[in-house]
């Protein structure tokens, strides 16, 4: 009661937003320690969720802003991951520092983004989706088979013993204790990922309300009109592909470092669909919605994994349905329900909301 009154008094107060922000900052800062007390696995899960949020933000530029449906987005994640793996593992005997490789990975992914974008400039909708789907598969199949005649990717075995992040004496794989606080590897990656995520959110937000962001939306709305208004649709579309891809490249690099091992199996088509689902479920075009979508779709399956078995055992005395089956069942159900009741996403952008509102179309 007292706290409710306290909140009421705060509402509308000038300091209220800052207090809210402070609360979020503190919560994000202590989160890994809270999670560690539950189980280190949860810190890893959180890290993976942040990685997916990064991917979703990248895909949001391509799909949400520019309206280019990309079904092979995971290819850029793969390109970033392999760039990191090949430059920081015993496979080639190269051990470059992470702050050199991550930009390289982003740049390589960016080039791949342009490679996908350039031939598909004239394609729209379904046709673009099919080509991007094929592109994602081509990249994966290449990774699978580039072990002969020269062994570049080590084929289906993947690349092992990938270096963790190292910065001077700071090793992301070691556990350090600072002032009584235990910083395990995943906790360190958590802070790094959080910083990258905040940066990515900032970039997305600023792009959204800029000359370039408006040009992307204009192309999505009506490409012919956009071009007639002087927008160089070719360059602006390529820019969307390139920027989206470099987000994927960075996320891939961090993924490789946190896992220590990658293989083509991590970059299958279903992953592309997963990232796209995060964007669509959260709310295409809205940065916060996209992050929400990524966090939800990353955590819910994990929570199910830990609860489905005990719940079924308690109810029926044995396990009837595998967690994986339930996960896909609920995922499908969630998508169907969402398309029926919230077609614009859980947290849509204003523009999307308008698009799906039932006022008259022309």
């Amino acid at each position, binding site marked *: 009661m007292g706290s409710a009154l306290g909140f009421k008094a705060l509402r509308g107060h000038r300091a209220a937003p800052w207090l809210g922000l402070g609360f979020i900052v503190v919560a994000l800062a202590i989160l890994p320690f809270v999670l560690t007390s539950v189980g280190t696995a949860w810190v890893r899960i959180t890290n993976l969720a942040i990685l997916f949020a990064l991917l979703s933000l990248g895909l949001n530029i391509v799909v949400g802003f520019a309206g280019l449906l990309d079904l092979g987005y995971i290819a850029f994640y793969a390109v970033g991951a392999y760039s990191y793996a090949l430059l920081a593992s015993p496979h080639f005997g190269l051990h470059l520092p992470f702050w050199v490789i991550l930009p390289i990975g982003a740049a390589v992914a960016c080039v791949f983004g342009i490679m996908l974008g350039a031939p598909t400039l004239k394609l729209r909708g379904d046709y673009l989706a099919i080509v991007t789907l094929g592109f994602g598969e081509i990249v994966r199949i290449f990774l699978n088979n580039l072990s002969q005649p020269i062994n570049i990717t080590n084929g289906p075995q993947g690349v092992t013993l990938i270096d963790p992040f190292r910065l001077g004496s700071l090793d992301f794989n070691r556990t350090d204790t600072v002032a009584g606080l235990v910083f395990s590897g995943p906790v360190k990656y958590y802070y790094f990922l959080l910083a990258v995520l905040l940066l990515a959110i*900032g*970039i997305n937000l*600023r*792009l959204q309300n*800029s*000359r*370039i*962001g*408006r*040009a992307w*939306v*204009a192309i999505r*709305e*009506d490409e*012919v*009109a*956009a*071009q*007639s*208004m*002087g*927008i*160089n*649709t070719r360059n602006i579309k390529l*820019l969307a592909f390139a*920027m989206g891809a470099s987000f994927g490249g960075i996320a891939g690099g961090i993924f490789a470092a946190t896992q220590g091992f990658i293989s083509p199996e991590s970059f299958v088509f279903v992953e592309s669909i997963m990232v796209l689902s995060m964007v669509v479920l959260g709310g295409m075009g809205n940065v916060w919605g996209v992050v929400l979508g990524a966090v939800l779709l990353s955590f819910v399956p994990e929570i199910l994994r830990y609860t489905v078995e005990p719940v079924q055992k308690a109810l029926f005395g044995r396990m009837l349905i595998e967690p994986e089956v339930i996960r896909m069942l609920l995922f499908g159900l969630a998508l169907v329900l969402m398309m029926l009741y919230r077609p614009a996403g859980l947290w849509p952008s204003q*523009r*999307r909301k*308008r*698009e799906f509102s039932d*006022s*008259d*179309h*022309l």
Partner: protein
Amino acid sequence: MQMARLLEIRNIEKRFGGVSALADVSLGIERGEIYGLIGPNGAGKTTLFNVLTGLYVPDRGEFEFNGANLVGLKPNRVAECGIARTFQNIRLFGNMTAMENVMVGRHVRTQAGALGAILRTRHARQEEEAIRRRSRELLDYVGIGQYDDIVARNLPYGDQRRLEIARALATEPRLLALDEPAAGMNATETVQLRSLLERIRSDGVTVLLIEHDVKLVMGLCDRVAVLDYGKKIAEGEPALVRADPEVIRAYLGGALP
């Protein structure tokens, strides 16, 4: 030697399969005039517009705009060179607000790139501010300043037409090409449109107008060209063109007795 015309169209030909949409069309537009393009449905008026704005590449012929040959340029380059257009079947960015629509029109005259936007450089911020200011001015100019925050597709029809004009003006054109701007407008709106076009002309923008409303064309235009089956059958002052037997035949299907 006389001052070169703003736009010189020479022997433009455009075929779609066996259909000749434009056959050997030549015409010239002087600086500062309002030039009307009329003709029955299917005469090739919109095709000429599309050729002019780079959406179609002509099969033959050339057009010179402000001293430069524009044939084969992409629509965005044509806009850059100073030709802006509206569309017969309004093509606004439906889910963007009126303001945002006009702001998109400023794209071609501004430079801020992705990096400038991300770093929010001083230059990018100033430019964004200028874009916003100019767009607001243009909304007021065409008389829909009060609707800045309304989503384009929810605007009344006549206002959508005016918004399209504002968006086109945002590209700072030398030539404003309007494809049936009065279509679907009521009498009051047409009167307003007429005074708007006169104001645009007096502010130094040349206007090329496709229009079915013969009264509007005759009252507004300095010169008129008539297309029929892809051919130019008459050109000149409205009063003369109206009396041209060829034009009467095209519109009424035969010479008057």
